[in-house]
């Protein structure tokens, strides 16, 4: 946390996107993507990013996204080509093994390229972001720490998550001004325990409801049924309830246990990261997302999307962005006019497309 807080001016983050406006852009994106058998989706991605970046303001200045659809398309084509080559080569077992090892060593490089591309293609107040992470740093934060977490049966998962966040934030710059992040590990453990507590308590409650309604027996009998392609060969599976129940329970577990626990963890760690990050040594950030309300937003968004067969997606996007922005503040410790751009170089789009597929996103600038 930053010390000379009193000298800083709180400047709210504002999101000016509107549902109707975004719906129009979204549906046109969707239609053009379909009509071009997916090729336009690269341009659609750019337009989407631009919409959300350009409608997000801090101190009257908005973000912007500068990649072109062509860059994204080329990146995706390279990734697809790589996957096809990998698929074909791994028909030979020894090559499959070599390919896997190569891929493992490639991941830190791809992650750095992906973050670099995203950063360089993003700007705020006419100054581009930058990313200066190294291969070694990425290998440590994205491979070594997660392996350690697994080896310690996830008891050190909070350390791994902090290492990842630190790698991402510490290596980012706005122009020449560096971001910095450090937070006590206890805060990460608190978020991790909240995540576990939600799952455990939720599972117990779900079990109790099942027992109380007598569904548990049906479930135990039917569980085998869903695992099994020819389950209908078994007379026990003829009960319609026995057929549908395991699937319902499975969805319920995702909807009630895992996804909300993930959302809870996301909100808590987002607050930690923002509240312990600084920019250029003078600016700081505040994130006050109420975790349970964030879970509610995510859950109700999902229900709305399903009930409208997806047509409520744009509304859900806007609602979530507005909610997150409303709980984010920049603590400005100097002039917003003083950022200066770094030398401009373009990262390739290869890493970016990989980031698309692997869901490696950076969580900066809202």
């Amino acid at each position, binding site marked *: 946390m930053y010390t000379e807080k009193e000298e800083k001016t709180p400047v709210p983050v504002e999101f000016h996107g509107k549902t109707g406006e975004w719906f129009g852009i979204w549906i046109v994106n969707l239609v053009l993507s379909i009509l071009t058998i997916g090729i336009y989706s690269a341009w659609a991605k750019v337009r989407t990013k631009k919409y959300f970046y350009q409608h997000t303001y801090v101190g009257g200045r908005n973000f912007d996204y500068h990649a072109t659809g062509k860059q994204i398309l080329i990146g995706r084509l390279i990734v697809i080509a790589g996957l096809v080559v990998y698929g074909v080569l791994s028909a030979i077992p020894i090559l499959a093994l070599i390919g896997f090892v190569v891929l493992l060593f490639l991941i830190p490089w791809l992650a750095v390229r992906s973050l670099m591309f995203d950063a360089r293609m993003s700007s705020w107040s006419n100054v581009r972001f930058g990313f200066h992470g190294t291969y070694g740093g990425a290998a440590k934060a994205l491979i070594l720490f997660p392996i350690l977490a697994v080896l310690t049966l996830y008891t050190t998962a909070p350390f791994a998550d902090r290492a990842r966040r630190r790698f991402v934030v510490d290596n980012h710059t706005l122009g020449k001004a560096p971001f910095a992040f450090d937070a006590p590990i206890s805060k990460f453990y608190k978020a991790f325990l909240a995540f576990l507590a939600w799952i455990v308590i939720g599972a117990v409650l779900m079990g109790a409801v099942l027992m109380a309604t007598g569904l548990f027996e049906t479930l135990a009998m039917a569980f085998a049924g869903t695992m099994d392609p020819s389950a209908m060969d078994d007379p026990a599976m003829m009960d319609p309830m026995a057929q549908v129940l395991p699937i319902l329970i499975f969805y319920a577990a995702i909807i009630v246990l895992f996804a909300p626990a993930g959302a809870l963890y996301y909100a808590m760690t987002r607050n930690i990261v923002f509240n312990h990050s600084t920019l250029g040594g003078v600016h700081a950030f505040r994130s006050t997302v109420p975790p349970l309300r964030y879970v509610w937003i995510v859950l109700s968004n999902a229900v709305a999307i399903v009930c409208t067969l997806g047509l409520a997606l744009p509304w859900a996007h806007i609602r979530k962005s507005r909610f997150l922005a409303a709980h984010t503040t920049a603590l400005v410790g100097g002039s917003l006019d003083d950022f200066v*751009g770094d030398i401009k170089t373009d990262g390739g789009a290869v890493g970016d497309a990989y980031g698309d597929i692997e869901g490696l996103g950076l969580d900066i600038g809202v």
Partner: protein
Amino acid sequence: MAVAGRYYAAQTSRMIEASAILSTAGGEDHLTVRSGDGTALASAPLGSVAFSDRIGSAPRRLVFPDGAVFETDEHDAVAMIEGDTRASRLHAWEAFRPRLLGVIAVGLAGIWVIWRYGLDLMVAGAVALTPAPMLGAMDAGTIQAIDATLADPSTLSGGERARIRAIFDDLVAALPPGSTRSGQDFTLDFRAAPGMGPNAFALPGGSVILTDAFAEQFGEDDVIAGVLGHEIGHVVEQHGLKQVYRSLSIFLLVALMAGDTGPILEDVLLEGNLLLSLSFSREKEREADAFGVALVREAGYDPYGLARFFLELSTMAPDGPGWYSTHPSSADRAERIEELIEAP
């Protein structure tokens, strides 16, 4: 004409209140940015100024050749200077007005076409590219999961296992050449799984699992051959693999085309679909029946074995109403199998 806005010199975040003035000199349009006190900050021929695309109500950015930026919210004025461009027509289509209903209709029709035809194409491509070792690894993972949750080691005697395995080997040997991918192994495993009853199932890589209860209740060679043939049919026709790829394709298409669906739907789409994909459709069961009958006959077993199995099943429990079942009812299947056998 003067347009009010904000000016940034290249590579700086310093925001200066300014206005842009369009003038004509020597037959060429010129754009000049002046600060409040009239100082010229940037000037260039209009043709060399890059206009950012209009997206929603976000400010427009006019980028000068030296990298300086003039930013304004006066959309109408910029649109007038810029004239009709591809980007401006795109923006017009995106406007929230009745015409958008037509776009929505085209979108829904497109989704239907993808659902009906596009998915099958994607799945066929992915299946063709999947190497056999990967399938084997997938099977090993599934068997591990089943062992951990549902199944115990088989208690069948060694002789009994050898007898069933010999039937299985006969069937595999009778497979028409070219019907399997190179490097694919068919293996038979036995498990005691009380929760599953008399049952058999196949995994995409060629692992077939038979429950002890099945061997005990349906010991007859021809019945065992019929059911194993049916399961091998699922493998050869790649039903399991196709279902897995189908759900992965749906996940990928939604992510690429519709965008972020939020953490909950993402999980449901990915995991939920995989789960649903483990149950086969009526059509796929019939395909496997047909394949199994032909294979069993080729291997020298009585093709009526599978029909007898289903008939016996139907006497054990009444079939439920057909509409909820994704599988043909047992009596119905027996009848169809007999038709298959009698057909030349």
